């Protein structure tokens, strides 16, 4: 028995979620009284994971795997799971984690719980908490199969340092035929993405026009944050669709979410209430968003935001 964690890297560098799933996997393996094995593919520095509790690291190095391919990766995970007698497989909830997990579940005849937010509350029966109803509720899901697959919701557990001594072992994996070829990848470089951001600054229809986004971008840049918007804002073409967050847009699970001129409609909240701390700036004291917020300012965004930028700049220079 063991816990197998897939720690994803991109262009050789670990994604942030790789450290979170490793930290999480370590705790799960302790609960199950077993050891953890971490699998990496084409990572430049697999041994980084020792810092997060990974004793045994298995790496696959293969130039055919520079671009993620779910079918091939699910099969490699199966090969490693069988070799290591893994009974719990853990992946992240990024685009690739969610792509590969159901395929692994079929390969290993395993029950699968996606978007898991906590450690198992019981190991026998195996019960684990996950998001449901578009983040309006949680379900405690019992997985009854021998092998279990879990995808961990981003930022729901955290990264914990737990330095261990260990080994890095190269595994020569069989590469299956996938029937899928990657033609091109477009990625916004140098800009913090909503999925990766610790802080997200989001604007709503209260900002009146796309031309008023300068202060939102400035606030985001002071905080090293990603910018986002409510649905009507992208529908009106004030901002690109890729910034639309909420139930029908991108989910946000940042540490800090700052909502400016957003009323807090149920469909908006559904997508953002996984964020840890929410700040709301709105002229209307009755705006529903205040009920879901941690900190609120009733005020005009055009006055409050420039002041906030100024104060944050002062704060940053004092704490640099």
């Amino acid at each position: 028995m063991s816990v197998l964690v897939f720690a994803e890297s991109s262009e050789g560098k670990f994604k942030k979620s790789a450290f979170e799933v490793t930290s999480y996997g370590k705790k799960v393996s302790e609960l199950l009284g077993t050891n953890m094995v971490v699998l990496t593919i084409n990572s430049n520095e697999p041994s980084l994971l020792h810092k997060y509790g990974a004793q045994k690291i298995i790496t696959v190095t293969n130039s055919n795997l520079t671009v993620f391919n779910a079918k091939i990766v699910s099969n490699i995970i199966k090969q490693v799971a069988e070799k290591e007698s893994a009974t719990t497989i853990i992946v992240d909830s990024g685009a690739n984690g969610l792509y590969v997990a159901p395929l692994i579940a079929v390969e290993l005849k395993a029950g699968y719980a996606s978007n898991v937010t906590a450690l198992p509350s019981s190991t026998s029966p195996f019960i684990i908490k996950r998001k449901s109803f578009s983040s309006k509720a949680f379900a405690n899901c019992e997985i009854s199969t021998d092998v279990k697959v879990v995808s961990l919701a981003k930022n729901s557990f955290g990264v914990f340092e737990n330095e261990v001594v260990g080994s890095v072992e190269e595994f020569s994996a069989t590469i299956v035929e996938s029937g899928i070829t990657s033609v091109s990848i477009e990625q916004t470089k140098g800009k913090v993405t909503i999925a990766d951001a610790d802080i997200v600054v989001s604007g709503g229809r209260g900002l009146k026009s796309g031309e008023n986004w300068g202060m939102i971008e400035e606030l985001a840049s002071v905080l090293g944050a990603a910018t986002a918007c409510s649905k009507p804002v992208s529908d009106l073409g004030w901002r690109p669709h890729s910034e639309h967050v909420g139930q029908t847009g991108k989910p946000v699970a940042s540490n800090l979410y700052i909502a400016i001129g957003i009323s807090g409609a149920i469909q908006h909240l559904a997508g953002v209430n996984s964020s840890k701390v929410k700040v709301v700036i709105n002229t209307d004291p009755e705006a529903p968003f205040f009920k879901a917020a941690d900190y609120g300012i009733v005020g005009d965004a055009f006055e409050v935001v420039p002041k906030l930028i100024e104060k944050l700049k002062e704060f940053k220079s004092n704490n640099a």
Partner: protein
Amino acid sequence: MISMKILVCISHVPDTTSKINFTENNTKFDNNGVQFVINPYDEFALTRAMWFKEKQGATVTVINVGNASTEPTLRKALAIGADDAIRVNCEATDGFAVAKEIASVIKNGGYNLVLAGKESSDYNGAMVPGMVASLVDFSFINACIGLEIEGEKATASREIDGGKEVISTSLPLVIAGQKGLVEEKDLRIPNMRGIMMARQKPLNVVEPVNSENATAIASFEKLETKSSCKMIDASNVEELVHLLHTEAKVI
């Protein structure tokens, strides 16, 4: 040239504005007063299927795994333009079991393109399409935001963290779609004529293969209600910066 035989997976979910409550000691969703609709992600898949039917020629079958209460949702899909519907007659309580039911229908029906939403807006399992693809050994694209088909060749794009990837593949294929597969403004809604025609279209009820569930829901929890929001005066923005640093520890 092979013809497209499309199966669209339709999940029957509470309307997005529904209040989420649970009964029977928090083990069942309380559907009292709740209106059920086609899962929003599936609407993109269904509209794309209609596009293929009209522009390139295809048959479109819609499928739901569920009890008789889901039939109005399947009728709505027929009213939007699907040719026929299949309901697999069992309670859908586990994604793996649902995937096995759909896989069995695909094998018997000879479908070569399966379009689904990337997740359902109620249980958010995000697993049925991938599992179906794996069970029937079709190619699979998750979080698909664009799909073109020419003969047997398919070009699809999928959302990746911070961007998109363009993929080339071929039929048979399973797609887990979302916004982008078609634009939201192009989503189809039933018109009067469609609703009338839907009454005559076949809705076939098939018995399940009854596979064992891999998961079960032990209980539900509602979100904790926030311990009231701390209000800060608009003239005291400095206080917000201070609290975010010392209390919330997020900056």
